[in-house]
């Protein structure tokens, strides 16, 4: 789940072992679990709680989620990535063999509490999918601005790629020129994805200028000609 300020994620281990999710399941499958509901509710606005799981050998700050009398969850805020993780869920019953707190400590000792390599691989995959989806929506919006504007328009595609677009129309022929700012975009695959989002089967050609100016040293540009619809 992605929220405006941060992302809320559940580790695979917690999802399967603690919440009873299936290997290929999604968070929606366990959305009614009391700790998941508490997680989505409490960590939407706060990255921390009021109490931590103590005596963890990793030294990680695991904040306790409390739901009803016995349901407990553990969350970890990964500041660098702006992600709050639900890392464990269980029941609290002092003295019980499967009490949540010693359970968390054992997971931590076994290095199974923190997000795993698999969790980070999933993040990368999700980020790529989100970027691809954003490119598909941002590109036509920028193209529309260029069509309605007078001359060149600049914008960001995918939230980070600097792109300038100019559209010239003459005798039912439309030429669209696109200049990429290579300071923000190094991967040629992103360029290809953006050009495809502008004109999927377009015959894009390299160009050494935009309609009204030469290229800057940090730019690479392409143009495409088509018939005005």
């Amino acid at each position, binding site marked *: 789940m992605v929220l405006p300020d941060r992302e809320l994620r559940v580790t695979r281990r917690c999802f399967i072992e603690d919440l009873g999710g299936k290997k290929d399941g999604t968070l929606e499958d366990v959305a009614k679990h009391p700790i998941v509901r508490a997680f989505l509710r409490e960590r939407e606005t706060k990255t921390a709680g009021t109490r931590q799981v103590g005596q963890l050998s990793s030294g990680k700050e695991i904040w306790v989620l409390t739901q009803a009398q016995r349901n407990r969850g553990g969350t970890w805020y990964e500041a660098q990535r702006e992600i709050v993780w639900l890392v464990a869920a269980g029941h609290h019953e002092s003295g019980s063999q499967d009490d949540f707190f010693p359970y968390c400590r054992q997971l931590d000792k076994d290095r199974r509490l923190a997000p795993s390599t698999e969790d980070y691989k999933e993040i990368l995959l999700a980020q790529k999918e989100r970027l691809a989806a954003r490119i598909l929506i941002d590109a036509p919006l920028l193209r529309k601005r260029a069509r309605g504007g007078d001359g060149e328009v600049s914008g960001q595609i995918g939230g980070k790629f600097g792109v300038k677009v100019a559209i010239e129309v003459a005798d039912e022929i439309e030429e669209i020129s696109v200049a990429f700012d290579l300071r923000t975009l190094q991967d040629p695959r992103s360029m290809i994805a953006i050009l495809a989002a502008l004109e*999927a089967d377009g015959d894009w050609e390299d160009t050494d200028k935009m309609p009204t100016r030469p290229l800057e040293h940090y730019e690479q540009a392409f143009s495409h000609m088509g018939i005005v619809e």
Partner: protein
Amino acid sequence: MTQQFEIKNLIEIRVGIDRHNERCPVPPEAILLNPLDFKLMDHPRLWGFPVLPDPSVPTKRCRIQCEGSSEEIEAELEMYEAEADP
């Protein structure tokens, strides 16, 4: 039309194309919109496909036209239901 409304419609249209491509081996020829939505959206082309007004398409819906189109495989889906802010 607010940009948020436009973005939601673009997402719905894109989903329609992807669904069509999953079900039909023939590539889309055009995206058909009700003339009112066509005017409101103001995108003559999307992702390389022409966008065309078609009065037979209900408002807030889009239809993906392809050579293999028939009633059964034509992708018709509801566009975002909310009204655009004035």
